[in-house]
Every structure is written in structure tokens, then in C-alpha cells.
């Protein structure tokens, strides 16, 4: 069995569940509907098969996740990904951080920001707009939230309008949810070791 990863990486790892994924052969109609399983689409990740143990919440969460991350207007995709990364750094969700850092790199066509984030963690120093977004996401992700009116004002001073700030609040908060599933219900493991 390959080793659990403990360091941040942009190489998306595999995910090894700590609880039993549902068996597709025994899935209820409700579960199949939530998983969008059809005769031509039977590939479902272990992560989603684990979440199908609570099908009512999964059905509510999937469209909500997609709307927060991909709805049109408001904050651009890279800003939402940066919010997701800020939460994932605080919650040390190696898997979530890898997925969303790599998307951020693709969207922004730079690797500098994520290199700094992974090296310095919560204390990362970024250009002013990115810093306002990242620092807010980090502070909102603490328990209780450490985000202040000054952090919110920094977003406004960086030029974000209410629509954009709302999208950042939603994406950072959403990863308070996603991190607590991904990081608590399974382990990130190196890809090549599993596939060898």
C-alpha cells in the first residue's frame, strides 16, 4: 500500500477512502440517480461512492458545488480557485489543494503564486489583488472565522465589487465543506505508486 501524502503538491494524487464506498451493484435507484449512473456511464470515483452513503446530502451538494465554482458572472474562475486553495491550506487538505492549485495555474498561466503558497502556507506573499483574496479566504477558514472588516475592506480596495466578494465568500466557505469530507474521510496517496 502506498504512503499517505502530507506535503502540498500540484500533482493530483489518488484518494484512498477510510470508509466503505457503496457497491454500485447494490445501489438504490435514488443513489444511481444522484451518481448520474447510466448504462453508458458507470465510472464513478471512490470519493463520490463514499458520499453516496448519504444520498440526500449528496444530491443537494453536487449542483450547489457546480453553481458556486462555475456560475457565470461575478468573480472570475481563478479568483474562486484561489479562495478554494486558501481554505484547503488552512484545513491541510492535500488532495483539494492539488486539484485547485493546478486549475489555478492553468487559468492564470503562472506557477509563481502557487509555488509561494505551497512554500509559505498561510503567510504566503502575493500581488495585492491576489493577496486580498487569499488572505481573506485563509482567515474565513479559521474556527471561529478570523476575517475582519479590515480584510473585507482590503477586498474592496483591491477593486472587487459586491458580486465578486460574494462569490469569494461562497467559494472559500464551500471548501470549508469539501475539505472536511475529502480530508477526513480518506487519504491522498501518490499516483505512480498505486498505478505501478
Amino acid at each position, binding site marked *: 500500500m502506498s504512503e499517505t501524502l502530507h506535503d502540498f503538491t500540484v500533482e493530483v494524487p489518488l484518494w484512498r477512502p*477510510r*470508509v*466503505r464506498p457503496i457497491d454500485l451493484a447494490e445501489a438504490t435507484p435514488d443513489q444511481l440517480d444522484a451518481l448520474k449512473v447510466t448504462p453508458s456511464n458507470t465510472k464513478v470515483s471512490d470519493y463520490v461512492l*463514499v*458520499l453516496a*452513503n*448519504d444520498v*440526500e*446530502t*449528496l*444530491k*443537494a*451538494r453536487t*449542483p*450547489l458545488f457546480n*453553481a*458556486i465554482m462555475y*456560475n457565470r*458572472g*461575478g468573480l472570475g474562475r481563478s479568483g474562486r480557485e484561489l479562495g478554494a486553495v486558501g481554505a484547503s491550506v*488552512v*484545513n*491541510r*487538505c492535500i488532495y483539494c489543494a492539488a486539484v485547485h492549485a493546478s486549475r489555478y495555474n492553468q487559468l492564470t498561466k503562472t506557477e509563481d503564486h502557487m509555488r509561494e503558497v505551497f512554500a509559505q502556507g498561510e503567510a504566503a506573499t502575493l500581488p495585492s489583488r491576489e493577496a486580498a483574496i487569499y488572505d481573506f479566504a485563509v482567515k*474565513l*477558514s479559521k*474556527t*471561529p*472565522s478570523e*476575517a*475582519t*472588516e479590515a*480584510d*473585507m*475592506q482590503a477586498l*474592496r480596495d483591491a477593486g472587487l*465589487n*459586491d*458580486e465578486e*466578494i*460574494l*462569490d*469569494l*465568500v*461562497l467559494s*472559500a*466557505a*464551500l471548501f*470549508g*465543506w*469539501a*475539505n*472536511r*469530507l475529502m*480530508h*477526513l*474521510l480518506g*487519504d491522498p496517496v501518490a499516483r505512480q505508486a498505486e498505478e505501478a
Partner: protein
Amino acid sequence: MEADTLNDDDVVLREAGIPADSPVQAALSGRADILAMTQKAHDAALTPAEPGGLSHALRAALAVRAARLHGEASLAAHYASLMAEAGAEGDVAALAEPATKDFADRRLAAFAAYTDLASLAPKDATEADIAALKAAGIGDADIVRLAELTAFLAYQFRVVAGLKLMQATA
């Protein structure tokens, strides 16, 4: 299922208390679908049709506990009202108080310990924390239900906290 108008009865909107003439309200209207889906997720996590081994009363009590750990007094009051509706009593009702960690029923002790970990320090979670739930007799499906409940709450509390900051600086 997509809503294009806000429902003032949604928990997040009620607790954030954004005035109708606020610019924040205008931004929220543009994301009415997300607010409606957030309320559906609240209902799925707190009052599901098939609650499994986590009764509505137990879910509401853990939600009060999590809200208090997050310093969210008004949301704690909301979940306390759900507790009352669900008829929470005895040791289940005692879960609402974060200072109470010892329970005769080891399942309740495990639910409390997991809620504290997931709320305060999810980064510190390890395989041993999930093993502790299993050792207390909590099955895989109930572990996922517990994880979704505490994770949803972490999301909801932060949305409300963020909206309040937006309003304070509007």
C-alpha cells in the same frame, strides 16, 4: 429547482440580516439559485427523510454544539429551536454544550469528539479519528452522514460570517 428570487425565510438570509436596500442584497439576488440550494442542503443535512442512525434531534444538538464552537450565537439559537422541535432530551440534548465531553453512551461521546475535531481542527484529523467512530459502533453510512452534517455547517457558518462583513463595510 433554480430559484430566481430570494426567500427571506432561508436560514442564511435570516441570520445574515441584510437590509432590503443594501448593495449586498443586490449581489445576493444574482445568486438566488445558490441561496436556494444552500437551504436545500440545510434541510438534507438537518432533517433528512432517511436520517439513518442520526436522528433529527441528534443532528440539531450537534449543530448547536458546532455553532457555539464557531462563535455563531444566532445560528446556535436557530439550531436550538430545531432541537426543541425534534424533542431532543437527556444526553442527546447535552451534546449541544461543547464543554460536555463525557457521555455514558460511547456513540454520543464519539459524535461529540468528531464534531469538535471537524469544527475546530479538521487539519489534525487522521485515520485514527475515523477508526474511533467505528470502534464506538458507528457504521460507515452514519460516519458519512456525520461528516456531511459537520462539513455543511462549517460552510453555512462561513457564508453568514462573510455576509455580515460585507454588510458592515457596504
